[in-house]
């Protein structure tokens, strides 16, 4: 549950500015680059192109090609450059076009960025951000559709944030840039044009604060990134059927706000974890274990997981749509767990 000290997404209301997820990310980067000359962006097609998703459009006009730096198609190379730049006084933001390309940067991220502070006994720091994407159903097939955030969440030394809304996208990006550690921000590429309330002015969301996106009493949906909207839709359907679902978004995998997850589980007694990574050995398993461990005696049902099917993402839309959890699946599972008649 939220407390007054928390940074909580405002509900849409008259007079609150509404912008897209992409605009929120763009605004966060621009504000931080104005604030701190050490911040710069590098990646493929980040300058004039503003990335294929147009999230960075216009930044090169204000900050120039030195600070919004187009690179060759060399993911490991520019990720490595970011590590070295971060170790020597800069705050690079690496743009990794697709989350699938994490495979190409893993040594720089896992063996270099994540371990430098520890291996150096605290002498060196790597304050860098790597922003990338997750999410299927864009008809992009198996190498442009994966949700691999579990991989980076498994590595001590990395922080991992998963914004689900424009407000969180802005606030988490600003916190990540100011963080003295390597932070991976994974954005749902289908959400870039989604709109949400983002008030004018400074928004910094500390990493490690969950947000209760919808309050409820019968069941808790712990949902990440692209699955927050799925959980909210399911909660809407369930409300019409007389069941009250709470939707909790951890917002960051590392650090993880275990207290808020456990508190909600204790309140409702039933929990489904829903995440777009493959279900096996994934983020959903870790979150389910955290809840089971912290709220065991308050649970009325086993903690359930809903993740992507354990198959490579197929191209054919008919097949692809089968692989990702849907509001209908979640609704049915929740009704079953609550003992409601189907």
């Amino acid at each position: 549950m939220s407390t007054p000290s928390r940074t909580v997404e405002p509900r849409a209301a008259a007079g609150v500015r509404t912008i897209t997820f992409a605009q929120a990310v763009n605004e966060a980067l621009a504000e931080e680059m104005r604030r701190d000359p050490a911040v710069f962006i590098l990646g493929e097609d980040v300058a004039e192109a503003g990335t294929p998703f147009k999230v960075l459009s216009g930044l090169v006009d204000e900050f120039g090609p030195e600070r919004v730096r187009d690179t060759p198609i060399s993911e490991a190379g520019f990720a490595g450059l970011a590590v070295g730049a971060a170790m020597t006084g800069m705050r690079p933001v690496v743009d990794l076009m697709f989350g699938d390309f994490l495979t190409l940067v893993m040594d720089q991220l896992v063996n270099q960025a994540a371990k430098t502070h520890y291996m150096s006994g605290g002498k060196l720091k790597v304050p860098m951000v790597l922003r990338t994407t997750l999410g299927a159903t864009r008809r992009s097939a198996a190498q442009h559709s994966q949700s691999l955030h579990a991989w980076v969440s498994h590595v001590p030394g990395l922080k991992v944030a998963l914004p689900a809304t424009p407000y969180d996208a802005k606030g988490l990006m600003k916190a990540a840039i100011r963080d003295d550690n390597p932070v991976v921000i994974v954005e749902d590429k289908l959400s870039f044009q989604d709109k949400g309330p983002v008030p004018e002015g400074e928004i910094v969301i500390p990493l490690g604060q969950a947000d209760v996106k919808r309050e409820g009493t019968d069941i808790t949906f712990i949902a990440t990134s692209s699955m927050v909207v799925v959980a909210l839709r399911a909660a809407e359907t369930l409300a019409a059927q007389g069941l009250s679902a709470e939707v909790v978004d951890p917002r960051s995998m590392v650090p993880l706000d275990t207290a808020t997850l456990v508190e909600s589980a204790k309140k409702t007694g039933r929990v489904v974890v829903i995440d777009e990574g493959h279900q096996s050995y994934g983020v959903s398993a870790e979150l389910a274990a955290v809840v089971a461990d912290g709220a065991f005696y308050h649970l009325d049902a086993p903690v359930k997981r809903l993740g992507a099917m354990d198959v490579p993402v197929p191209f054919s839309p008919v097949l692809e749509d089968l692989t990702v959890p849907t509001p209908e699946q979640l609704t049915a599972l929740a009704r079953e767990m609550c003992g409601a008649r189907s």
Partner: protein
Amino acid sequence: MTGRSAASKTASKKRRGRRAALEEPSVDAARHLETYRQMVRIRVFEEHANDLYLTAKMPGLTHMYAGEEAVAVGVCDALRRDDYITSTHRGHGHCIAKGARLDLMFAELLGKAAGYNRGKGGSMHIADQENGNLGANAIVGGSAGIATGAALSARLRGTDQVVACFFGEGALGQGLLYEVMNMAQLWKLPVIYVCENNLYNEYTHFEETTAGTILDRPRAFGIHTAEVDGQDVMAVATVTAELVERARQGEGPSFLLAHTYRYYGHHVGDIQRDYYRSKDEEAHWRSERDPIALYGAWLQERDIATADELGTIEAEVRDEAEKAVAFGLDAPYPDEGEVTLHVYA
């Protein structure tokens, strides 16, 4: 080889504000003796590291730099303290040459809290940022990105710092190196890629793993190249001074190929080496191509130092190293609470 003659020609061009190349007549005896001392410190350090391993006092294992001293010392002679280096799994020599203390290094090798990195890095990860050493790296070629990024950082911060990226010829097999050399040349970054060709990728001769000609690789990017006898510390220092000057002037990266040899095996446990290199070959390098002996002879020929003076330096270094080993052995291990410290800054 460009070696001495070409390098000397460049060195004779007077440039204001730069450090004199080691070969120039203006360099005084004290600097020569300091260079000699640095090479001896590396040699003696490695002898102790080997002993600590063989007597089971050192956890894990280590990769010895003995035989290659002239490369690290020659390159670092041309660098300022605020210039950066990145190093390798065979990194003790780079670390010492860039200014590290032996006692804090031994403490690190022994996993002690007094070590450079509180015992958490060990032999393959010593970092000494106060002297510009961004760290040794246990991934072959893994620091090429870091070095190039530090060079980009120097540019963006508006400093004239230069970065030397040390790697063995084994790293020529890693794709990362070519990705970052491409960017370094595109953006004229102040980085010197120092390829220490000690002939062996672990247990395999480099000719079995390396197609074409090594220097054709950086040349394909238009990167300025140089080649040097890595057993000749003055030649290394002189050619590096030229490359550093280019980098400081904004003329971009360079690639220095240094021919050298490692006296020990790939690591301390690599004792039986006959199957990949002969004892005759090892004996030849030790007797004919030893960088410390060659430099010592040169210093005596020029009356810069007597045999006695060089002997005194060695005795002083042996004394320093013995005290440093004792410091490391006596130092306490980290408290158990350290295990969760420094995961995050």
